[in-house]
């Protein structure tokens, strides 16, 4: 890293004009080049990144050097079409100076957005974290800044709500449910996030799966399907936070949301049967309640009617009784065929079939002479 920074900016500045500084300036690029680059670009030219640039840059430098100075500076417009100075003396120290200044400015000032933090390392060593605003650091090779978005809520989805794919999870009572959930998290501590875990994002996912499954392994199927969801979400969130804090990952879990917790498709019908049974049972109950209302109301009505009549009856029992008797008999006998047979010595002969026939023949006739109770 040092090596690269040692020679690259200088050469680049000399050769490539003002853009050279930019190429190597911003910390991110420089750092990466340093890490991936070879120990010594000249001895191992096969390696990627910086090394390929090296020799060509040198050749370029040499070529331009020869052009500028070999000709005595008379007509050589070696640098980006800059006009030669009258004195014939080299213009390139000025160019180098400009590039240096540009490079200093570009790599020393850092704009950190309101949702970001900048983690500063001084020669590899963590130095400080920049808060939002414009901050000043030492130029590129000395200090480098990595900005991290700490406000952005990142979401990880595990399982999907679609019917094709199932994320089957075992519950505590050895049943299986199809689960889809999402985890929202953000970065609480940017330096820990950058420096503690090799793959923080993958870690969140793994921890989420592990925590969710271990929580589900302690609840029953019915809890997981319905009532216990909120508790499960909270427990998972808590457990994830504990595990991630154990790694000192600098990650904060904002929330866990269960998007779907259903029985697997293979047993869905059986679950529907249960809800159908619940409906049926409810129907039974409703019918029974209706019938009960009917029976009770009827009893109350009849009892009330009897009570009313009885009240009156008690006032003059004999008269009421007779009145009711006659009224009823009237009602009954008025509508039927009546035959009055004088008793005594005559043996009555009852032509029952004939009576029937007669009744059928003339039903509306009012029948033979009979007593009709007048009012």
């Amino acid at each position, binding site marked *: 890293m040092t090596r690269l920074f040692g020679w690259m900016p200088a050469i680049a500045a000399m050769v490539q004009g003002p853009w050279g500084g930019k190429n190597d300036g911003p910390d991110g690029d420089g750092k990466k080049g340093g890490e991936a680059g070879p120990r010594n670009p000249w001895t191992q030219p096969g390696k990627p990144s910086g090394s390929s640039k090296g020799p060509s840059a040198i050749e370029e430098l040499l070529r331009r050097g020869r052009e500028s100075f070999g000709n005595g500076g008379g007509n050589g417009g070696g640098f980006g079409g800059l006009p030669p100075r009258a004195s014939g003396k080299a213009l390139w120290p000025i160019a180098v100076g400009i590039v240096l200044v540009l490079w200093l400015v570009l790599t020393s000032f850092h704009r950190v957005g309101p949702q970001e933090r900048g983690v500063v390392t001084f020669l590899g*060593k963590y130095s400080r974290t920049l808060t939002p605003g414009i901050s000043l650091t030492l130029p590129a090779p000395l200090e480098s800044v990595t900005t991290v978005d700490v406000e952005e809520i990142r979401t990880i989805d595990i399982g999907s709500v679609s019917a094709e794919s199932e994320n089957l999870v075992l519950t505590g009572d050895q049943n299986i449910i199809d689960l889809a959930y999402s985890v929202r998290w953000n970065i609480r501590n940017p330096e820990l996030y950058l420096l503690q875990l090799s793959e923080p994002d993958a870690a969140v996912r*793994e921890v989420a799966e592990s925590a969710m499954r271990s929580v589900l392994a302690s609840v029953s199927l019915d809890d997981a399907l319905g009532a216990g969801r909120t508790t499960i979400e909270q427990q998972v969130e808590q457990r994830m936070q504990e*595990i991630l804090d154990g790694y000192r990952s600098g990650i904060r879990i904002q929330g866990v949301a269960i998007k779907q917790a259903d029985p697997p498709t293979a047993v869905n019908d059986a*679950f529907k049967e249960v809800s159908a049974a619940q409906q049926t049972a409810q129907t039974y109950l409703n019918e029974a309640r209706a019938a*009960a209302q009917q*029976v009770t109301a009827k009893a109350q009505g009849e009892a009330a009617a*009897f009570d009313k009549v009885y009240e009156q009856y008690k006032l003059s029992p004999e008269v009421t009784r007779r009145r009711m*008797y006659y009224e009823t008999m009237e009602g009954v006998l008025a*509508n039927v065929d009546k035959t009055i047979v004088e008793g005594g010595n005559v043996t009555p002969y009852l032509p029952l079939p004939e009576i029937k026939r007669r009744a059928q023949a003339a039903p509306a006739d009012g029948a033979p002479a009979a007593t009709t109770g007048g009012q």
Partner: protein
Amino acid sequence: MRHPVAIALAVLALLIVLGSTITIVPETRQGVIVRFGDPKYIINRYRADETFGKTGAGVILRVPFVDQVVWIDKRVLSVEMERQQVLSTDQLRLQVDAFARYRIVDPLRMYIAAGSEERVSDALRPILGSALRNELGKRPFAALLSPERGQVMDNIEAGLNRVARQYGAQIVDVRIKRADLPDGTPLESAFNRMRTARSQEALTIRAQGAKQAQIIRAEADANAARIYAGSFGKDPAFYDFYRGMQSYRYTFSPDRSGQTNIILSPDNEFLRQFQGRR
């Protein structure tokens, strides 16, 4: 300024020497300085209580062209085990996914024993698998789905740690990511069990509903009987008469089907007045 090429070359040479003398150690790495294949010392070694900014990271000097730096990751690394089939004591099969996280705490030992982080992971992976199989094989299936699971994990972690120490690594934690029933018969039979459990529940619910309904009806009948008795019991004789009248009306009502013929004797109570006696 007379020999720019020579100057440039000199500068370059100087930079090269400087570059191989000065090494920047980032926070995320520790290194072993190797001199002619002989590990000399360790830079930026992990310590549990350190805070960033107070570690061994930063600039170090080394002998140019002689000392080589072997970089070793300082962060928490992860090793994932591929799916394993585990047999519990009650002969249930389980497909288990697990992962372990570890950190290289002894770079020198790790350099000597393994050489690179990948090889540590390669070495730990089968051991994680066998530790898992052994530990879970000692327990019934249900133990995996209970608080005992934590104990299982601790045992596995301890077993794995013994091996990891030989590679200069330390296990941060071991976790089961997934534990599923394998596809095919085990899964099918689990589904079957769920299905039958649900059918049973459905039948129970229906039977309970019917029972409740019957109780409600019976209660209503009892209630009605109580009301009747309370009212009619005041005068049983009058009730007999009253109800008799109602019954006649109903029975001989012309709305009823069937013909009614009544044959009366003049002695009948109703015809008492026929005889004109008082």
